Every structure is written in C-alpha cells, then in structure tokens.
C-alpha cells in the first residue's frame, strides 16, 4: 500500500465517521471568527435555540471593517464613522460576550487580521484542522495544518457541532525545486505558481507546497504561499512541518508547554514529526517549477493568473487562439486601462498598499522598509500606505524603527486591519486609480469600484512607490 500524503494523515486523524459514499464528518480543532461572516451564523444558532459545541475552540477578532487611521482607534468601536460597519463590529462583540468566546477587541494590541493573529498567538498548531469564514484560511496550512475557508452556513454548522460535512479532496504536490534568485520572494513564487496552473488549477485539490525553495522560506514566507492557494482554486494549501515550524510555534501564548506534571510540548513536537508526506505517498497531480527561473512578478489583469515577470510586456488578445481566453484578455486590458504589448515596467501607479493577510507580517515590513530607506515616494504617487497585520506586528516594527523609515519616505503608517485589500473600510481606490498592492486579489472593483490592482511582493510595491512605476527590484540593490 502506498504511503500517505500530509493531507491524508490530517484528514484520517479527524474523521469522526464516514458514509459509504465518502461523505465524512470531519472534526474541527480551531475555528477563527471575524465580524463579516459570523453575524448570520450566531443569529441562526439563536433561532434554533442551539449553543456552541466547544467555545474554547473559537478565537474571534474584528478585522475587515476596522478603521486603520490612528485618529479612529483607541476608543473602541466609537471611532468607527460608518454606522453599518460599527454595528457589525458591535454585533461581534455582543455575540462573543453572549456565547463566551475569546475575542481580541479593536483596542487590544493582539487585534489584527485573523490570518496573522492565529499563527502569532499559537492558536494555529501543526496537525490541526482550522476553519474560518474566510477563503484565505488556507494561510494556516503553512504550519502543516489542514486549513480552509467556509461559508457562513458552515460557520454555524461548526459552531453547533464542531464538525464539517466533507468529502475528501484530491492531492496535488507543487514542488518548487532549487533556490530562488536574489530579490525573488515568497509572493513571487506563489504568483508564478498561479500563473502556471491558473486560478482553477487547484480546484478540488488540497495542494502541498514542497521543494527546496519552499523549505528555505521562513514561516512568514510559507504563510504568504499558502495564503494564495485559494487564488489557484485550492481551498487548502499546506507545507510539511520542520524545525522552522516548531521554532516559530514555541513559546506562543496558545502553544503547548511542558509543566511539572506533564511534558506536553515535548509530546506535541514528537507527534508533529510525522506531519509530512511519506516518501512513497501518491499524489493525483504533481507540478514542478524551477525556482531559479522565477523572476519578480506583477499581475497585469483582473485575475491572479494574469501575471508576468516585471520585465515582460502585457499580452495581446489577438495572439490568443482560444476565443473565451482572448475575450478575457481584452476585457481585462480594457478594465485595467492598458494596451496590448505595453511594457510592465513602464506602468505608472497612483497608490501603494502594503498590507493584507498575504503580506503584512514583520518580514514583509522589513523587506519593504529596506527598499524605501533614505528615499522618497515619487511625485505621481498620491498615497502610499503600510498597514501592519496586527498590533503586535506594528509594535515589533516600531521597536525596530521601521515606522520612521516609512514615514520619512512619505508612506502613511497605519493601524492593523484588512484595509485596502478589500476596501470594506475607508481605505480604497477611486475609479481608474492604479495601485501596486501586496494583497491577493486583482478582481474588478476589489480595492474600490473601478480601481486597478497590480499584485506584487512588498519589496516590489515599495520600489514602485519610490519610482512611480514598476521596477525590477534586482536593479535597485
């Protein structure tokens, strides 16, 4: 019999029962909750007179709607000027109090983007099943966990039963072999992967990312890669546990510890040693990329698969033979205000956004700061903003003096939240504004109606902010 993949192992360990047709009840260890996709679930519980199965499995935080301007923070939800957004966060606070859920409130230094704070608090552990009413839950797979987004009906289902009704996904291995070149980051790796397999390439699969270039990444980088598994169509992305994982988890508030009575940490670490695919595991699909050929990436269109090297030219719909694809390219160029064949490094930008659950961790802050240090934001850039992923990331960055580097260069240094990744709060693009963004989606209207998003790494966004247009980061150093 063939060995097991990492996904097989975590799946098998969490099946409560399985029907003949493969429909399984899958046990959920960690449930992360935010204000946008939970109110209807709590309301559903109340209407059916149901309680929570396990309140201690839930960690809640407001992130999507919170203001990121300092003037609007520090006074609880009173600082939220949009009454509908305020009501949604007040509702989360009320629901968490009523159902006795641990919540990091808006003014708590531990508040931040749900996919930043889960790992930061050690609430995400290797081998766990993790769900959240948010598609970027795939982020947590970086810890050798099975983590994926769910809809609000499933949020309610997990709250009431601690389980999900699931059918097993297929296994895909994406191996990024060799080492990346200088200036090529985790974001470039994952954008190159999406460019290779397409936004639906991973549909129906759990993707395991492996290979030397992945193993070389820090946990922050691994989270960036797994975060965007959903942009390749896969609900779950994951990476095997190694020493990097264990070193990151150790000592975090929710992580196990050794006590006088029990050596729980040691036991956990021992159990986590098995969280990798067996040598003889069989995958339904294997994709290999050579790390050395990945260049800094920039998306040019309205889907994350519309991505190219910064030194490439925007494609021409006339050279695409497939009619549906050709129309996709011309629609995207029209929306993006680009012409076929235009050089990507000549595209000028209006705004820079450094943040989001993809790229708002301390390493991202450092990468961007290293580029802007001693430089100024270009005159044609109307707004350049940095939004750290959590209060703790913000504090760490300030302790390292990164806030000053950004501010001196003309960047705004904001309070933590999802911000302009999806523009639910006041941070957004105006129609036709063009943004170099470290977020995860370049969909039409994602950052504001009519807004034009180019997805890039933190270093590439910072460099574009200084130059006023996209530049190859490797030419700066």
């Amino acid at each position: 019999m063939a060995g097991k993949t990492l996904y097989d192992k975590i799946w098998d360990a969490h099946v409560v029962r399985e029907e003949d047709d493969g429909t399984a009840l899958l046990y959920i260890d960690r449930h992360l909750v935010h204000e946008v996709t939970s109110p209807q679930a709590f309301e559903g519980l109340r209407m059916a007179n149901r309680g929570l199965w396990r309140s201690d499995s839930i960690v809640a935080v407001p992130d999507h709607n919170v203001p990121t301007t300092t003037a609007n923070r520090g006074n609880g939800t009173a600082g939220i000027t949009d009454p509908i957004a305020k009501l949604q966060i007040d509702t989360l606070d009320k629901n968490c109090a009523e159902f006795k859920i641990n919540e990091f409130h808006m003014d708590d230094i531990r508040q931040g983007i749900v996919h930043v704070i889960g790992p930061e608090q050690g609430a995400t552990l290797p081998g766990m099943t993790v769900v959240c009413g948010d598609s970027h839950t795939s982020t947590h797979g970086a810890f050798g966990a099975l983590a994926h987004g769910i809809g609000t009906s499933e949020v309610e289902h997990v709250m009431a039963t601690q389980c999900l009704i699931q059918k097993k996904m297929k296994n895909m291995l994406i191996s990024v072999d060799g080492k990346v070149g200088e200036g090529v980051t985790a974001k470039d790796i994952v954008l190159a992967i999406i460019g290779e397999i397409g936004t639906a390439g991973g549909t129906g699969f759990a993707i395991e990312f492996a290979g030397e270039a992945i193993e070389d990444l820090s946990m922050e980088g691994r989270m960036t890669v797994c975060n965007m598994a959903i942009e390749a169509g896969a609900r779950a992305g994951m990476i095997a546990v190694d020493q990097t994982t264990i070193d990151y988890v150790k000592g975090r508030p929710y992580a196990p510890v050794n006590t006088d009575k029990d050596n729980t940490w040691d036991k956990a670490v021992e159990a986590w040693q098995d969280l990798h695919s067996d040598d003889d595991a069989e995958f339904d699909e294997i994709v290999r990329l050579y790390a050395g050929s990945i260049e800094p990436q920039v998306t040019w269109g309205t889907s994350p698969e519309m991505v190219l090297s910064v030194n490439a030219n925007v494609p021409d719909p006339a050279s695409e033979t497939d009619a549906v694809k050709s129309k996709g390219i011309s629609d995207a160029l029209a929306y993006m205000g680009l012409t076929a064949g235009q050089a990507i490094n000549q595209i000028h930008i209006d705004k820079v956004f450094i943040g989001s659950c993809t790229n708002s961790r301390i390493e991202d802050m450092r990468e961007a700061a290293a580029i802007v240090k001693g430089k100024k934001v270009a005159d044609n850039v109307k707004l350049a903003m940095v939004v750290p992923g959590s209060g703790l990331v913000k504090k760490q960055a300030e302790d390292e003096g990164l806030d000053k580097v950004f501010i001196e260069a003309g960047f705004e240094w904001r309070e933590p939240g999802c911000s302009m990744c999806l523009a639910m709060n006041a941070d957004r693009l105006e129609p036709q504004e063009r943004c170099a963004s470290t977020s995860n989606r370049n969909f039409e209207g994602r950052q504001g109606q009519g807004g034009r998003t180019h997805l890039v790494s933190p270093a590439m966004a910072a460099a574009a902010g200084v130059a006023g247009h996209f530049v190859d980061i490797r030419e700066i150093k």
Partner: protein
Amino acid sequence: MEKFTKHQGIVIPLDRSNVDTDAIIPKQYLKSIKRSGFGPTLFDDWRYLKAGEPGMDHSKREIHTDFVLNQPRYQGGSILLARENFGCGSSREHAVWALEDYGIRAIIAPSFADIFYNNCFKNGILPIVLVEEKVDALFTETNLKEGYRLTIDLEHQFVIEEDELLTEKTPFEVDEFRKYCLLNGLDDIGLTLQYSDDVRAYEEKRKQQTPWLFA
C-alpha cells in the same frame, strides 16, 4: 431551506469566465448583519452605472442597459448560465444569498470554485456542471431564442431542453448526500447532531492522543 425537486425557468446567459464573488456581491454590502435583501445588489458593479451603497433605493439607480440582468428578455429568469470557474475568490456566502434573493434556483457552468459550489447547496441553489461544449450550445440557444427555458429535474439528474420538435435530456452529476438535503430542504446541522455521541467519543480519544488541542 427551500426544497429543490424539479424547476423550470428562463435562462440568463452570463458570458464571462472566472466570475468572482466580489463581482457577484461587492464588499460594501457585506457589512449587513442580515441574511436577506441582497438581490437588488447582485452583480452591482456590472448592473448599475455608479457604485452603490447599503441602504440606497436601488430601484432608482441608473442601470447599464446592456447587462444581462437589465435586458427585458431575461426578466424573471431563474437559471443562470455561466462560464468556467464561476464563483471564485472570497468565501462570502452573501454571493449565494444575493443569487437566491434575486430568484436564481440553478446555475449551469463548466466548472465552479469549491467554496461557492458548497455554499449553493446550503441555500437551495443547485449548481450543475456540464461539459464546455454543452454549455456553449446552451449559450447559443439562449442567445437565439427569446424566453428560452430549461427544466431541471434533480431527482432524475437531467437538464431538459424541450421544444415543439424534440426533448433532449442531459444528465448531470450530483453528490448523493447533497441531493438528499436539497430534495428534502434539510438543515444539515440537525442531521449532524444525530451523531453527537460519535463526536463525543472522538473527542475523548483525541484528548488522550493530543491533549494540547483541548487546552
């Protein structure tokens, strides 16, 4: 949840691939704490000339007259015909709530994004995967014939095209459990709670093996 057994309705062709859930319902409407009322803002950016805000009277907004939902021939439509990777992106169930509130009961496409596909079943909407050639043919039919209708028979798993001359039945796949829930309009939380003892037994076993997951 409304039962889905057999449904006949006007087909609305949405000829775009990779339609994401941001396009289905833009973010500003996600601030609602309710589950209903999203229909008027379905495909908001494509449907109206200017960006809308929650609380507006959407019936008074200027529309893009060429967008399918605004064309007189598709009024009252309840079957959405779409292209590959429909519903990609965000997990927001508001996208499905918007389709449901608008009156969509079934969506036919060559492929769907996983989370969206799953969310449909929780809300009485049937997503149907047909091969690309068949979807192409249905686009052609819909564009040619005003008031083009299809019948969807969930029990026997057929998409049925009927005219004066012939009846063509195209089979489709659907997961047994999901079909059962949809046919009966069942709340699956109630079904899962029948297995509470199994869940408790699992928890007891896991507390021994992996106590750190229960701290």
